[in-house]
């Protein structure tokens, strides 16, 4: 297991800021010139190509099935937190709605070497210094906590502390920091399960092959509200250090990241991010913290 979770805290923002700084080294004026929609090097010039995985799960994406090939939800609708943030960022960067194109990027290919087929990617990708060696990360567009979901009536549903989770069989979707929360913070007695998709994890929870599913808190609320009857959130993990955040991914060295950071800074300053978070992830307030 590659060790990295502990390092997340202190260095979290440094690489992305450093990249932003490098891109705009000659000052704000030239950064603006770089981010000009006509001259910014893009996969398809004049179009901002945004990637995410398919199916597109709520609350990150909404709007239902609308256009091909999207399943479950459609990022082109602007509904759901990541879709809304993506369009807000695109708008700040000077792209109209029609100049935004969405492409399907399976998680494992988001960091494939070679030419990327997206300019930026929003797919609940948590920043880590190790990952940032291979792709660009923007600053945070969402600070995330992890949470445990289970079925009501299971023994685990009454657990109040992280230590209390130890004896149970836990699972998490692959590629998430949820799995690291299990191995690094819970350190359970049983080998945790790691699923290809959120759906597989949810099914395993339903089937009783795992006692608890660890996901990020907004996903946890979606699972309990819409996916599994009689399920509940056991609790959320308090952040460690600077905590964990989702960043917009771009190709290593891409100039897009600097422009995304500029846009995100504005959206944060003028309250747009907070507003979108309330709209799409509003339910996230009420889960108890695991001691």
């Amino acid at each position, binding site marked *: *297991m590659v060790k990295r979770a502990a390092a997340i805290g202190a260095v979290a923002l440094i690489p992305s800021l450093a990249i932003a700084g490098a891109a705009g080294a000659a000052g704000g004026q030239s950064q603006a010139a770089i981010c000009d929609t006509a001259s910014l090097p893009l996969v398809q010039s004049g179009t901002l190509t945004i990637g995410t995985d398919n199916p597109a799960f709520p609350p990150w994406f909404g709007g239902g099935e609308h256009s091909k090939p999207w399943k479950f939800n459609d990022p082109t609708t602007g509904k759901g937190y990541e879709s809304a943030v993506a369009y807000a960022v695109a708008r700040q960067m000077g792209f109209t709605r029609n100049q935004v194109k969405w492409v399907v990027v399976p998680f494992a290919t988001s*960091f*494939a070497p070679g030419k990327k087929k997206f300019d930026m990617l929003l797919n609940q990708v948590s920043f*880590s210094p190790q990952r940032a*060696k291979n792709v660009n990360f923007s600053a945070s567009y969402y600070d995330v906590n992890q949470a445990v979901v289970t079925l009501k009536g299971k023994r685990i549903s009454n657990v109040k502390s992280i230590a209390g989770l130890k004896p149970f069989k836990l699972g998490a979707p692959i590629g*998430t920091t949820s799995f690291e929360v299990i191995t690094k913070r819970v350190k359970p007695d049983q080998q945790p399960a790691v699923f290809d998709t959120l759906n597989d994890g949810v099914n395993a929870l339903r089937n009783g*092959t795992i006692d608890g599913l660890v996901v990020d808190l907004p996903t946890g609320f979606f699972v309990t509200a819409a996916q599994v009857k009689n399920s509940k959130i056991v609790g959320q993990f308090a952040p460690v250090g600077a905590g964990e955040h989702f960043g917009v991914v771009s190709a290593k060295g891409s100039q897009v990241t600097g422009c995304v950071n500029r846009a995100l800074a504005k959206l944060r300053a003028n309250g747009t991010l907070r507003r979108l978070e309330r709209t799409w992830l509003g339910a996230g307030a009420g889960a108890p913290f695991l001691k």
Partner: protein
Amino acid sequence: MESPTASHPPPAGDRRSRILSGLGAGEGRRGVVIAVVSTIVVFALIVLAVVRSPGWDEVKNAFFDGQIFRQSFPEILRVFKVNVRIFCTAEAIVLVAALFLAVLRSLPGPVFFPIRLLAIVYADVFRGIPTILLIYMLGFGAPALGISGVPTSQLFWGVVALVLVYTAYVSEVYRAGIESVHPSQGAAARSLGLSRTQAMRHVVLPQAVRRVIPPLLNDFIGLQKDSALISVLGIVEALRQAQIDSAATFNYTPFVAVALMFLIITIPLTRLTDWLINRDRARRQASGAAA
């Protein structure tokens, strides 16, 4: 029949003669030199083409990162025990179940038609379904039935799926072996007063099984590799551990590590299989020459 190879069969233990068996007779030392030079030239060209390709640096960083390799290898090796347990358990069951199935299928007479039919349907169905689908369906489907007494362990159902598929393949191997034993053998045994069962048990099967040991080993190698498919059930074995490490680092080096691990155990077995095949051929040729 007098052919040059039959009158001068290559000594079974002579490695060089096997490796260079493509050489015509009489080329001798010159042939060896040409083979060596041509090998070096071909491989050098391939290596050069890869290393000098425009994307090589990126691919090298993504697939051959020494530090990530050192970090992930021990952990992958640790969970590789799960694979070993999976394929050893499955192989033990398969070898017995497939033999049983093959014998059922070779039962003569109209009375046994339904049994033969069942055996044929079984072999057709389970050779026809992609292994990964069967693992998926059983692993997520069987525990969901909620029948008391039916195990909910996904590892259990994963092994069941592998056993079902490989029993179908291996039973065909056994059947080929049984059919390769000349009918006169069975007839001779019967004429000595052995019952049909005794003839099968003491005369036909010992010859049949010995003949099909190399293809049996081939299927065992296939089974070893397919143990990685069980990862789709969320079980953390070597491949899944590599995926976890890869997702954590955004680097594919852990996959190279797991590939190496499989090679380390499969190559000796493939060599052994080849050696057995060659020994067998040499023996047959020797006995053919003697006759």
